[in-house]
């Protein structure tokens, strides 16, 4: 199990993801999977600010929408190159994230969550009412797909799948770097206790803003990819329903774990796909499943496994210590 939770598991997942198109029964499944990967990137961002830093951001879908609209509007209305617009989708989202973060992070706990709920609502309203810029309820249509980079063309669904996969791996690698470093430890200390973190000389505001900006940059890039994959946008992308979807993904997989967003997003996406035949009744099946999961695995799937592993490691270390202590004692009595 230790191997599967470390590099081994990550590599195994990557191999499975690379092979997936070979076993997928149709184009639609490949498309669905690449959309799921995009939501993994966005959820990983949410996980950084909420799972690792402890600040529940309910405007996260708003930032996905900001990234998506940045790409959509720049390419459709202003003739920008796809990749330049894609780069800007992350940057614009991060810049707005910085402004929102400076104001909203002055609030703590549920006050912060409620504030961001309002921010999400404002973003949605702006996208819907500011017709001159956003096309309002008509949405943005005819968004181009990712343009070729040199000899690499992303015309086919398969090529786009691998593009999204590569970017998701990049995003997760970056997350891994962050959360296992001193910086990640700083974020976790803030989640654990702001009072203690501050007493340890950690600047709460600066670190929270950094986590918030990073999370909104990831949301923005996810949004840009979403726009390039779906090719159509409407203001509903920013609705709080999508934020709660991402929270569900993170909860199922495990908040505050690196692979939680991956496992959670994929499981929820595919379970709801296979419950599609139930149409509106699928929530009757899905809801109780979620309740059971929260009761029996409150830390999510990855969180549960990591905890088991950590406990076992602690027991083994304890046994090893006892063993060597006993050996030392025996040696002493023999001498």
């Amino acid at each position, binding site marked *: 199990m230790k191997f599967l939770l470390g590099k081994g598991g990550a590599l195994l997942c990557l191999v499975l993801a690379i092979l997936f198109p070979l076993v997928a029964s149709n184009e639609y499944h490949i498309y669905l999977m690449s959309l799921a990967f995009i939501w993994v990137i966005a959820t990983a961002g949410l996980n950084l600010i909420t799972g690792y830093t402890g600040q529940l951001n309910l405007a996260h879908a708003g930032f996905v929408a900001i990234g998506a609209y940045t790409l959509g509007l720049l390419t459709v209305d202003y003739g920008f190159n796809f990749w330049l617009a894609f780069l800007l989708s992350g940057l614009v989202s991060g810049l707005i994230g910085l402004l929102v973060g400076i104001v909203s992070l002055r609030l703590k706990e549920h006050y912060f969550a409620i504030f961001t709920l309002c921010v999400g609502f404002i973003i949605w309203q702006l996208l819907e009412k500011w017709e001159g810029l956003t096309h309002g309820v008509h949405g943005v249509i005819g968004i181009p797909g990712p343009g070729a980079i040199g000899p690499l063309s992303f015309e086919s669904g398969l090529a786009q799948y691998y593009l999204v996969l590569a970017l998701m791996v990049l995003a997760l690698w970056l997350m891994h*770097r*962050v959360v296992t*470093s*001193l910086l990640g430890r*700083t974020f976790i200390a803030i989640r654990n206790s702001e*009072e*203690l973190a501050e007493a340890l000389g*950690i600047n709460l505001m600066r670190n929270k803003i950094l986590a918030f900006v990073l999370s909104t940059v990831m949301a923005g890039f996810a949004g840009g990819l979403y726009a390039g994959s779906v090719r159509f946008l409407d203001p509903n992308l920013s609705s709080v329903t999508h934020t709660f979807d991402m929270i569900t993904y993170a909860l199922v997989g495990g908040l505050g774990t690196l692979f939680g967003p991956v496992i959670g997003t994929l499981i929820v996406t595919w379970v709801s796909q296979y419950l599609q035949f139930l149409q509106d009744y699928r929530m009757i099946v899905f809801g109780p499943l979620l309740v059971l999961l929260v009761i029996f695995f409150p830390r999510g799937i990855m969180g549960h496994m990591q905890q088991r592993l950590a406990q076992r490691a602690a027991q083994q*270390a*304890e046994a090893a210590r006892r063993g060597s202590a006993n050996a030392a004692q025996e040696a002493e009595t023999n001498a």
Partner: protein
Amino acid sequence: MLKIENMTKRFGGLTAVNNVSAEFEQGKISAIIGPNGAGKTTFFNLVAGTHKPTSGRILFKGTDITNLSADQIARLGVARTFQTTHLFEQASVFDNLIVGHRLRTRSGFWDVVFNSRRLREEERACREKAEEVLEFVGLSHIAHRMIADISQEERKRVAFALAMATEPSIVLLDEPAGGVNPEETVGLAELIKKMVKHGLTVCLIEHKMDMIMNLADTIMVLDHGEKIAEGTPAEIRSNPKVIEAYLGSEHAAA
């Protein structure tokens, strides 16, 4: 080392700390005692920068720290522990301690992205510091245990270690022996003496009189936010004002 001048803190109509002046000397153990609600923890919160005083000044090594934030004060060398230890339950003792040295490091986001030499060196420094302070508080043998699985006394020691990891010159300990049995309290008192021997200045809040009387060089008594007495343990023990505050006026008269 630490000098407080006419410090007052009002929360709305309540005066939690009223015109208190005090001085904590280098290398000494000072204790703050007083009945519940006397303003002892508020006093610590003011010194450590968690709250701003309504009036008065706080000088640390001669510099005015009255208007600095808690994290700035920590970086200057004022460490503290809390009544409840606030440790991260689902992580090991060792993992809890690494972040304690974070304030002495400078690595930021780009160091993380490029895995810079500075970051690697600082990570190593933090680990070494964690080992060092764990050794100091005598808990090296439980480094790998989950916080959730260790005793209250061990938690207190981890909290001390965390405070030590910040490389402070003064440590504020809020009820270091709270919820700990008498034998273990003796052990914690030994540890506090060891900290002083190591060059630290200690200021503590405690309700356990036996411990205080044996440990403290000077004692300050707070009651209803006011300083009612100050002196050596022997002086405090025989001070009628203190006896009144603790036991009521009939006892003082008798």
